[in-house]
């Protein structure tokens, strides 16, 4: 395939779609699928056939539209009409509304002008909910693979890296390392064999950005990886994806097959000398494999235990070769940056955090789902404008960002801008983008215990501070929540948090104390209530001041 072929496919696909008066899109990402979206789609198709509308009305499955809480979602006519909580029985009403402009029942009509939709800025998710994720033509029609062709035919590797550096893009996996710098290091590293790895082991509980991107727009990730391969001098890529995401894996497999048979992956891409192949490797349920050296150990077929860095994977990674590791969302940003230029990307966001960020909003918030907003939007806007606030008029208590590595941010900081540095300044982290909202029904001791339990059982067990430290911290938190703790347990807890943070081998252990530290800092009154009064203010724990155990 060459650039002309690509343009032809794009033109044909666009023309094909424009034949229809109405395109009805049904979300077939995992969230809506679990609410019977596939049956909705089948019903719509047969209804269209019954009414003989095949020539003017097209039903297509698309990726995630974002508002998972209201799924299954259906949209038509460039999203002017949107429907929520749809069942197969609603197919008639939807067609009546779309084709005949009859008002649909209020229960399924969704306001497409909700802040949730209008306040977003979509770059990573620009195709999500728009294109059919299982058709490469759809992606190509949305300017897909244009950036890859531009790069391999017109730019030198350093020219690519220059754009990425200019864009100010920082790693979206959590730590926020400058992407351009990482690419430069791998580019400069000596070695004939290099690798590109896409980290799709989205292990943070409460985060589903990567899953959604892979399910909704898999080619975008492949294109980003291929561009990276060209820039750093690698001809082989691996996607390390969670086995818990079967749909994402399936769509990636389809996408790779399509890209290979279209000559967009494989040897001599675009009739150039650039070769790039991608293989999928399945994770097997180990959070620690999100850590890059552990991920590498896992791809090499071993136990996913991290090793000390340096050497960094950029110098010595997979099979000791220089290896570039970025996460799904980072790769998903690459093609748009190349298409529109690094400066365009850098114009979005804040001074030190450029571009947009995808967040998974979940927990006690009305509009749970996926959003993409410019960096620097305040937490308050995200939770109360886009998120629609807290259900049932309850009071906001905290928002947890960054999963087990992040912290709980209380109400007093709701007006901080969401960027890497601001979140760090209040003890949390950006993380991969999970945002769990909690209201007064959540107990912060219980939340701290929940995350510590997570870290304890996900610790690989290699280094002592993480293996035993998280266990001891978990035991203390358990004692507090059960009302068996004494005040001196808090001192021990504080002592361990500092030590585990600084002495652990990898990021898992180094960040494991964060949820505990932030809850200790902002919700000490709740800890005291458990320890001193044997009371859980939220009514979640059942602390029993157990003199009985003492027996005298």
């Amino acid at each position, binding site marked *: 395939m060459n650039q002309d072929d690509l343009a032809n496919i794009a033109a044909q696909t666009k023309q094909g779609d424009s034949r229809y008066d109405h395109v009805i899109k049904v979300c077939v990402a995992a969230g809506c699928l679990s609410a019977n979206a596939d049956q909705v789609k089948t019903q719509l198709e047969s209804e269209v056939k019954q009414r003989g509308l095949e020539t003017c009305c097209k039903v297509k499955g698309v990726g995630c539209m974002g508002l998972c809480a209201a799924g299954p979602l259906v949209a038509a006519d460039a999203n002017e009409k949107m429907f929520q909580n749809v069942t197969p029985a609603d197919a008639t009403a939807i067609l009546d509304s779309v084709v005949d402009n009859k008002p649909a029942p209020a229960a399924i009509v969704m306001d497409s002008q909700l802040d949730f939709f209008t306040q977003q800025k979509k770059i990573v998710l620009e195709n999500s909910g728009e294109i059919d994720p299982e058709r490469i033509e759809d992606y190509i029609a949305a300017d897909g693979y244009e950036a890859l062709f531009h790069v391999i035919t017109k730019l030198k590797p350093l020219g690519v890296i220059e754009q990425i550096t200019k864009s100010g893009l920082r790693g979206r996996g959590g730590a926020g390392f400058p992407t351009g710098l990482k690419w430069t290091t791998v580019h400069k590293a000596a070695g004939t064999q290099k690798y590109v790895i896409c980290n799709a082991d989205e292990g943070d509980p409460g985060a589903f950005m990567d899953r959604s991107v892979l399910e909704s727009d898999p080619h975008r990730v492949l294109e980003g990886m291929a561009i990276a391969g060209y820039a750093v001098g690698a001809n082989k890529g691996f996607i390390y994806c969670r086995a818990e995401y079967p749909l994402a894996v399936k769509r990636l497999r389809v996408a790779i097959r399509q890209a290979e048979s279209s000559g967009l992956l494989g040897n001599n891409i675009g009739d150039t000398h650039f070769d790039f192949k991608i293989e999928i490797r399945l994770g097997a349920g180990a959070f620690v494999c999100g850590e890059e050296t552990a991920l590498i150990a896992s791809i090499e077929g071993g136990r996913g235990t991290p090793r000390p860095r340096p050497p960094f994977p950029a110098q010595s990674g997979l099979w000791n070769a220089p290896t570039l590791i970025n996460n799904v969302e980072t790769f998903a940003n690459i093609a748009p940056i190349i298409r529109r230029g690094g400066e365009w990307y850098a114009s979005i966001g804040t001074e030190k955090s450029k571009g947009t960020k995808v967040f998974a909003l979940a927990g006690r918030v009305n509009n749970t789902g996926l959003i993409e907003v410019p960096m620097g939007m305040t937490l308050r806007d995200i939770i109360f404008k886009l998120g629609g606030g807290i259900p049932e008029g309850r009071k906001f208590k905290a928002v947890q960002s960054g999963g087990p590595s992040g912290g709980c941010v209380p109400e007093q900081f709701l007006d901080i801008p969401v960027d890497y540095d601001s979140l760090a300044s209040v003890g949390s982290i950006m993380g991969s983008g999970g945002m769990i909202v909690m209201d007064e029904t959540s107990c912060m001791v219980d939340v701290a215990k929940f995350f510590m339990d997570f870290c304890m*059982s996900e610790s690989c067990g290699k*280094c*002592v501070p993480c293996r*035993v430290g*998280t*266990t001891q911290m978990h035991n203390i938190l358990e004692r507090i929540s059960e009302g068996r703790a004494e005040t001196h347990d808090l001192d021990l807890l504080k002592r361990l948090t500092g030590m585990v943070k600084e002495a652990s081998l990898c990021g898992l252990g180094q960040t494991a104390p964060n949820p505990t530290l932030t809850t200790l800092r902002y919700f000490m009154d709740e800890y005291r209530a458990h320890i001193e009064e044997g009371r859980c203010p939220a009514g979640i724990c059942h602390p029993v001041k157990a003199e009985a155990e003492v027996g005298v």
Partner: protein
Amino acid sequence: MNKPGVEICTLIIENRECGGRSDQTILEVAEEYGIFIPTLCRLSGLSNIGACRMCLVEVKGSNKLMPACVTKVQEGMEVTVNSPKLAEYRKTVLELLFSERNHICSVCVTNGHCDLQALAQKLGVNHIPMPYIHPHLMVDASHPRFLADHNRCILCTRCVRVCSEVEGAHTWDLMGRGTTVKVITDLKRPWGESESCTGCGKCVQVCPTGALSEKGQAAGEMLKRRQFLPYLSMMREVGR
């Protein structure tokens, strides 16, 4: 005499000017200058894994603590080996290890000859501030000559490394993860039934505690013989 790319560096360790090759670790250079850095999972002659975190040191300009056993020296490096913080963290590592399993020194075969016990004394650990976890662990006495007592194991993996790197049998490895990690032989079968074990006993000799011992020893009687290790580390040195 040096390999290409290997340079001589001057650095400061614990306020002393030291010289070393750029392929040496901070620990190796410190040892040459007689500067003591505590270690536990490390054993000269085996690969270094930086797991026990006893040898953490502060390096000026880095906000992270570095394991001296795997961190290579660099020109102009300034290394602090002893600080109140490092002392506190090392003590805590030992305390955590004692709390993790059932190390009852008084009845242990290596009482008096144990790396963990000796280090605890040296660094001033005189009680364990966190509650003991008291896991229910087994003793494997199936091997005709050796004994594996998981109660004493600190998961340093010296046995795993010596078996795969030196003996080449790879009988030992780790199973599970987090708190469930245990050293195992073959498919977690009793040691005595192992198909791959050659019975060489190196694992027993390198074990820092009483986890692996020779049968027939009473409390305090098990002395570890590690004469073969200096030879190995010498060969390693020649090899690089």
